[in-house]
């Protein structure tokens, strides 16, 4: 599972480069789709890494600093990966609408993928050192416990704990973001379920970037909560349900973005969904309700506050 982001990004990168080399748009498209999926899957990997950290603390031979450095690098890798995934998504969205992404967008996504891959590679390396202390022996002298302030995670944690207003402000943004995402997904899925039948699918597809805006706001604020107070979440079962629902919702978001059937006869086709499409729409709404339910129940079914 931990290898999904690194291995998956290498495959996505290979597809994109091959797409350039062979001037094959199809390969590039698949590369972008894979990149988006990897960006979604990086979330559970990052979360499980933080959970593993807490377990490893009990193990004596493992240097706490080594883990902290790994986590900081992993956090950067995660951020770059989400950024790359976002650009890939924008490219796919435009591709669906205009038959091509804006000039430069795919190269930017590729470049961001290379950066996140480099950072991830470093995180994987440092992670390997945690698990296999023998590789580290030579550097052992360098890992004297240092000033915790140099760790990004520590700074975020201090801000989360000591700032009086940042946490409440982030909570408010998180609720605004969830309303926006949910509203957009409600509209798009209702269209598939047969409400607004007279509206071409292209017109509800137009709303997806607004859903992405809400989702992005919630990813940033949500990661702030998680990195700021990881203990609240890693020991909380509903948090894992929430992450699973988020992965389903993310995959579905990609599906709605590239969904080809509704476009077959041009933008003005009055697409009618079949049973499979409707099942997908219901799954999407269920996943979003699951995210809301598990998220709001965190303090009650789990141990967050």
């Amino acid at each position, binding site marked *: 599972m931990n290898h999904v982001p690194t291995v998956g990004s290498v495959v996505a990168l290979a597809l994109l480069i091959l797409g350039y080399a062979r001037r094959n748009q199809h390969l590039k498209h698949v590369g972008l789709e894979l990149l988006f999926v990897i960006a979604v899957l990086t979330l559970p990997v990052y979360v499980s890494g933080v959970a593993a950290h807490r377990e490893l603390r009990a193990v004596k031979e493992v240097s706490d600093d080594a883990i902290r450095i790994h986590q900081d690098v992993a956090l950067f890798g995660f951020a770059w990966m989400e950024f790359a995934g976002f650009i890939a998504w924008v490219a796919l969205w435009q591709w669906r609408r205009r038959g091509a992404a804006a000039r430069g967008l795919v190269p930017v996504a590729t470049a961001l993928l290379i950066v996140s891959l480099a950072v991830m590679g470093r995180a994987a390396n440092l992670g390997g050192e945690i698990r296999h202390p023998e590789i580290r022996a030579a550097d052992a002298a360098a890992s004297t416990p240092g000033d915790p302030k140099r760790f990004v995670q520590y700074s975020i944690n201090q801000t989360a704990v000591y700032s009086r207003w940042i946490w409440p402000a982030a909570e408010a943004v998180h*609720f605004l973001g*969830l*309303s926006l995402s949910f509203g957009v997904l409600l509209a798009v899925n209702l269209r598939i379920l047969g409400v607004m039948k007279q509206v071409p699918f292209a017109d509800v597809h137009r709303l997806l970037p607004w859903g992405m805006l809400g989702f992005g706001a919630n990813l940033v604020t949500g990661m702030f909560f998680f990195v700021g107070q990881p203990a609240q979440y890693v020991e909380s079962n509903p948090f894992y349900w929430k992450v699973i629902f988020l992965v389903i919702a993310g995959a579905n978001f990609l599906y709605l973005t590239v969904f080809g059937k509704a476009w077959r006869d041009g933008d003005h086709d009055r697409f009618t969904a079949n049973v499979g499409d409707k099942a997908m729409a219901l799954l999407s709404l269920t996943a979003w309700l699951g995210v809301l339910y598990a998220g709001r129940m965190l303090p009650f079914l789990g141990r967050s506050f």
Partner: protein
Amino acid sequence: MLESIETSQLALWLRESPSVWAFPTVLTLHTIGLAVLIGASWVLDLRLLGVGRHVPLSAFRWVFPAVAVGLVINLVTGVLLFIKNATVWGVALPFFVKMALVVASVATLLPIRAIVLRGGEEGRDVGSNARLLAVASILTWSAAVTAGRLLAYLVV
């Protein structure tokens, strides 16, 4: 009066029951209702502001029943959340600020609804009044959510 509400059986159950079906479920439903209510109104506000401008306004009639569902859920759960700690909420200024913002937000929906219905089946034109209402709706809902979220820090 507030005290007798707070000491009622229902309030007692909401406050003290360890069941997830008591306070936690009420609070979660309040969040789900919020998402439906505000999400649906925002989608219409976006249309009024020009997102998908060639879609007839009549396509957005579903927004009003959705808003109604969200509103009913949140009225019921909101009343339950109120009676749970009636003596606290009944005298808390931030709570009344939030209520005023909710009322203002719902108030923007009534003229918006009239505009959508007036347009008939094919109406697409959005005047400057409607755009202004859409901006007002987005802002008042944002303020209401923010105020509601902050209640947890300012009051309880």
